[in-house]
């Protein structure tokens, strides 16, 4: 779950005009349910798993799904795919969400500041953004992970250093619009301090687009980890994650297609859940 709350938006009284659409926010309910299930599965992985996910059993390698004792079969080293999938959810969801939280916070704050104050501060921040954007995403991330050394910690740092620019741009653009709105002028006219206007008045009104982007960004981050794994810079083996499962399974695509497909479906379901949440949030919170 994301930890972003939108202050002041939860009300007991609901206007007649908005009641209908809030009651039937199917997108949000389905999305949250799906994502909640995924999180639950990740948390309960030790309970639900039927095997040790890194226990090799070469005698029973590459069993098809439905084989006795192995619900989704085994991989080329005889490890239980079902158990690896559950433990993979732990790794991928944790890294995906955590690697989005810090770029989200950093980018949002810098975007707020750049958009509100303008001038040289805006120029400075946006030039840095331009520099970061000028490099292809993976080139920069790979270079950073190399410099920092492989491991999940480096992945967080590298993705944060590259990922904040998207949030910064989104939020800055929204602030440029919002600060000309009369409610922002009114807040200034009533003498409220700047930080308070920024975080209490502007932030709740501009953060929605960033939240929505973060939903798809989580999926992109999981895919980035998959890619890094491919280059040997991702989550170190034998820790199961969906990326390395896809990577390991792809060499058997013609014979055991399900080895790559099953974790692929898991990524797709995660993406779907987050996309539904994003759409649901738009419906729930967009006041326009």
């Amino acid at each position: 779950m994301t930890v972003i709350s939108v202050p002041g938006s939860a009300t007991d009284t609901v206007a007649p005009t908005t009641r209908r659409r809030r009651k039937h926010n199917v997108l949000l309910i389905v999305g949250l349910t799906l994502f909640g299930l995924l999180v639950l599965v990740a948390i309960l992985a030790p309970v639900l798993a039927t095997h040790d996910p890194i226990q090799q059993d070469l005698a029973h390698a590459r069993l098809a799904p439905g084989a006795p004792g192995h619900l989704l079969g085994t991989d080329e080293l005889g490890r239980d795919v079902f158990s690896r999938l559950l433990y993979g959810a732990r790794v991928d969801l944790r890294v995906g969400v955590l690697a989005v939280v810090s770029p989200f916070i950093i980018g949002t704050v810098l975007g707020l500041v750049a958009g509100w104050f303008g001038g040289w501060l805006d120029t400075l921040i946006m030039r840095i953004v331009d520099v970061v954007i000028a490099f292809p995403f993976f080139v920069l991330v790979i270079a950073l992970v190399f410099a920092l050394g492989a491991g999940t910690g480096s992945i967080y740092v590298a993705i944060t250093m590259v990922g904040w620019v998207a949030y910064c741009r989104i939020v800055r653009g929204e602030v440029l619009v919002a600060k000309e709105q009369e409610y922002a002028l009114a807040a200034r006219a009533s003498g409220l301090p700047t930080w308070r206007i920024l975080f209490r008045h502007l932030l709740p009104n501009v953060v929605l687009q960033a939240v929505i982007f973060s939903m798809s960004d989580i999926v992109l981050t999981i895919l980035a980890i998959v890619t890094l794994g491919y280059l040997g810079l991702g989550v170190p083996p034998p820790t199961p994650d969906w990326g390395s499962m896809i990577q390991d399974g792809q060499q058997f695509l013609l014979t055991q297609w399900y080895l790559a497909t099953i974790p692929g479906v898991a990524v797709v379901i995660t993406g779907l859940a987050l996309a539904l949440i994003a759409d649901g949030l738009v419906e729930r919170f967009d006041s326009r």
Partner: protein
Amino acid sequence: MTVTVENPSRTRGTDEVLGVEGLVQHFVSRRSWADRLTRTPQHVVKAVDGVDLTLSTGETLGLVGESGCGKSTLSRCIMGLYRPSAGEIRYAGEAVRGLPSRAQRRTVQMVFQDPYSSLNPRMTVGQTLGELLRYHQIVPRDQVAARSRELMDLVGLPHDALRRTPRQFSGGQRQRIGIARALALQPRVLIADEPVSALDVSVQATIINLLTDLREELGLSMVFVSHNIAVVRQVSDRIAVMYRGRIVETGLTEQIFNDPRHPYTQLLLESVPRMLSGAETHPIGAADSLGTADQLAVVDGEPDADESPYSAHAIEGEHGCRYRPRCPVAMPVCADEPGLLPIAGNPSRAAACWHVDDDRKDKPR
């Protein structure tokens, strides 16, 4: 040269609650490096170009003028939303340095034009008011809720409005909330920037009545900005007519309406559409020969194109009377811009026109 206009001592107090002297607000376009290399001249918009104003306790000043003449910029300057390029603003006799301090903010508050964008959509009415009451320590913390309910009573909204968000209100109700927000700080001056122009005509009257009632009840002074002459006439004690960043005529409401001296004021008054009941309207200027009766005044020159001499705001590199390009009675002397000239025998009036004391018979009535 500008002449400070004496405020007539009506029955109300004469002490100054808001003063503006020589206020200038120019906006300079941002120059890119390319502009600097090619020596593209900077584009300066003189939104407010030397304004003097005095507002007395309990007085309502109507500020009129066409769109883009600087009314809103002037009111935002007074409100302390811009740092003025030059000039002085005084709140209750105390000069504002740069932007108003937290304490000074309480003196002057504003009612905004657009009730749909002027309230934070993510905050309930109670949160909006409570924040101000707490931050400015208007009342002790345990009385914030009670004071919020009082404010709702004051603007004629039910108490449960405090728990709702702006989205759940109509335009007129939102404007009431906007007024409550302005009153939360217990200001002495209320600046109403086109407070009703975004509202349905049927709702406009109720909001204007509310404002005039509150003014009496709380002893407020008010600057009422509008392009709607009829509305301004209804609420104002005194009127200032603004044209391209300057005040071109000022006087008591009825004086302005009965005897407009500046050609622009005349144009403005003639432009108000009214029911034709045999009453003739004349084109402005010397021009019985130019137009026919039973027509609205002919406005020669649209205030739109940015660089045109007809543009609503003044631009750099101009000289002479700013109304000259549109003026039907321009003379050679108008190459010098007149300040606000006093009108003989009437200390409360002034007009920025060389014709100010012309015999009235010279002009078409």
